[in-house]
């Protein structure tokens, strides 16, 4: 059904703004500029500019949300099963935008970017950014693209935090929002996992207090351990049991020598190594910090207060096996919106795949999202 001939080719594009002296003011009080955002678009913006959908990526995501870069490209974007011609988020109908967050490492300005002077990288001199800063940068990109109002903004996990921030900070710019597998504030357990990941990076001697790019060797071991740990939190006990169980890796009996014994060890090592190939350790530090800091309750006094200005129609969904962003945290969002009788819908899916469920093909999720957006689109087109 999804033959390559119907696939869309996409290209990474760049938008630079906040050129000095008009730097971007960050939540921390620091300034950043110039700022470049890497972004990709799919579909066509209609004449009334009313069919734009912004997809916000999670911690390890990037702007490559769907489609292929070339005909020989082997892997599509990270949410390809959701986005394409005739798919849930239909590229024949909608204009889809996804940009790499600031502090990222896939083309947007981040700690691995060169300083404006060009002689070295930002490294830890890069200012700490927040989810609100990420969203403000996205708003600048939309201005550049001539999009005043989004048909929908959506994202899972940290992407969901961005969607919430959009709803709250730019109520007039979003007709609908789909935050999913997310929270309005990370719980202590989530912060704890992030801290262990960061400690693994700090502990790698190659990290060199963040200056590794000046020495040409990245702290791969530390970042790989951080990723291995994080990856476990994205799965569930059930999915790991089903996928690996206690199966041994290419051997009949234990090695008794600390070599690779179990399939699950091999899998995690592979995940760690693959991640190091594409991700920057300092970006990992900055992004996990931004997630830890996100707290709408703290910013507004209460979640109810934060949502009092929301005008978007909202759809929230969670997964029953997600223990990192559990259903109750998604329900807190729904509850606070309900207090104001906002138009909010909520679904909890049955899925064994843990937090990563939203990244795994699921016809129910695909239909739910398609139906929700289609309804909002029809409504907007009529009015």
């Amino acid at each position: 059904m999804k033959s390559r001939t119907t696939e869309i080719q996409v290209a990474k594009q760049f938008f630079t703004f906040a050129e000095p002296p008009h730097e971007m003011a960050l939540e921390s009080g620091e300034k950043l500029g110039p700022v470049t955002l890497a972004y990709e678009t799919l579909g066509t913006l209609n004449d009334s500019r009313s069919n734009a959908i912004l997809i916000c990526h999670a911690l390890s995501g990037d702007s490559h949300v769907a489609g292929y870069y070339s005909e020989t490209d082997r892997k599509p974007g990270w949410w390809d099963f959701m986005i394409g011609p005739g798919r849930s988020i239909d590229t024949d109908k909608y204009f889809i935008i996804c940009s790499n967050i600031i502090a990222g490492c896939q083309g947007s300005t981040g700690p691995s970017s060169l300083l404006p002077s060009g002689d070295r990288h930002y490294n830890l001199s890069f200012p700490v950014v927040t989810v609100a800063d990420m969203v403000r940068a996205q708003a600048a990109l939309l201005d550049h693209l001539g999009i005043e109002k989004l048909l929908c903004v959506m994202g899972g996990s940290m992407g969901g935090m961005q969607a919430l921030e959009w709803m709250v900070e730019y109520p007039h710019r979003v007709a609908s929002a789909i935050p999913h597998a997310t929270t309005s504030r990370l719980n202590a357990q989530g912060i704890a996992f992030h801290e262990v990941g960061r400690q693994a990076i700090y502990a790698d001697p190659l990290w060199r207090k963040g200056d590794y790019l000046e020495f040409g060797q990245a702290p791969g071991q530390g970042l790989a351990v951080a990723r291995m740990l994080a990856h476990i939190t994205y799965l569930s006990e059930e999915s790991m049991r089903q996928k690996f169980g206690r199966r041994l890796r290419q051997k009949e009996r234990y090695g008794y020598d600390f070599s690779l014994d179990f399939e699950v060890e091999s899998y995690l090592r592979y995940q760690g190594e693959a991640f190091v190939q594409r991700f920057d350790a300092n970006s990992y530090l900055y992004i996990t910090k931004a997630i830890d800091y996100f707290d709408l309750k703290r910013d507004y006094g209460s979640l109810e207060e934060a949502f009092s200005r929301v005008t978007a129609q909202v759809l929230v969904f969670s997964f029953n096996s997600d223990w990192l962003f559990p259903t109750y945290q998604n329900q807190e969002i729904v509850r606070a919106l309900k207090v104001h009788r906002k138009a909010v819908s909520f679904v909890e899916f049955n899925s064994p795949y843990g937090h990563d469920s939203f990244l795994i093909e699921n016809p129910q999720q695909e239909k739910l999202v398609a139906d929700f957006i289609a309804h909002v689109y029809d409504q907007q087109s009529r009015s």
Partner: protein
Amino acid sequence: MVFKHHFTRPDLNIIFDLIPPQSAVLDLGCGEGSLLHKLIREKQVQGHGVELSDESVFECVAKGVPVVHSDLNEGLDDYPDAAFDYVVLSQTLQQVARPDRILPEMLRVGRTGIISFINFGYWRVRGSLFFRGKMPKSKALPFEWYDTPNIHLSTISDFRRLCSSKGIQIIRQINIVHHKQGRLLPNILPNLFTELAVFVIKSR
């Protein structure tokens, strides 16, 4: 204004008529959202639903009816006091774990409650038990006793007694028999001659 009625369930037609335009309505156990959908479209109602079945929730979303996938038995704590003009519980009362708790909750979050349920005191139902000695089954009560979700079937008399013990005022009672609003017998002896009843309730 006269609205065309499309619901196959007669209680839904009556409930639709009872709700004035532009009200804020919470439908508990809203199913696929057909009542809310029609209320939103034709009466510009601000409608919200609560539904346990995920398939039904998907149908609501497809219709554009705001709906929350949750279990009524977990209560309505999420809703502040007097958030809605009307709270509807149509043919759902018999499925909740504690009907005595849901009624006051409905009247906490809403100013007016509308409830419909199958009257277990209807003579045909009684007849089935009396003559055949078996738990009644009908189009409205299609389940076997062992697999029915209807764990709290009641009669009109039972319901009225519960309301009075909870200090709940019955504003209106509409008796339905053979898919029509009952006239003679159902109004004289509703507990015996009414198949399905719709109640409008308020706090005293």
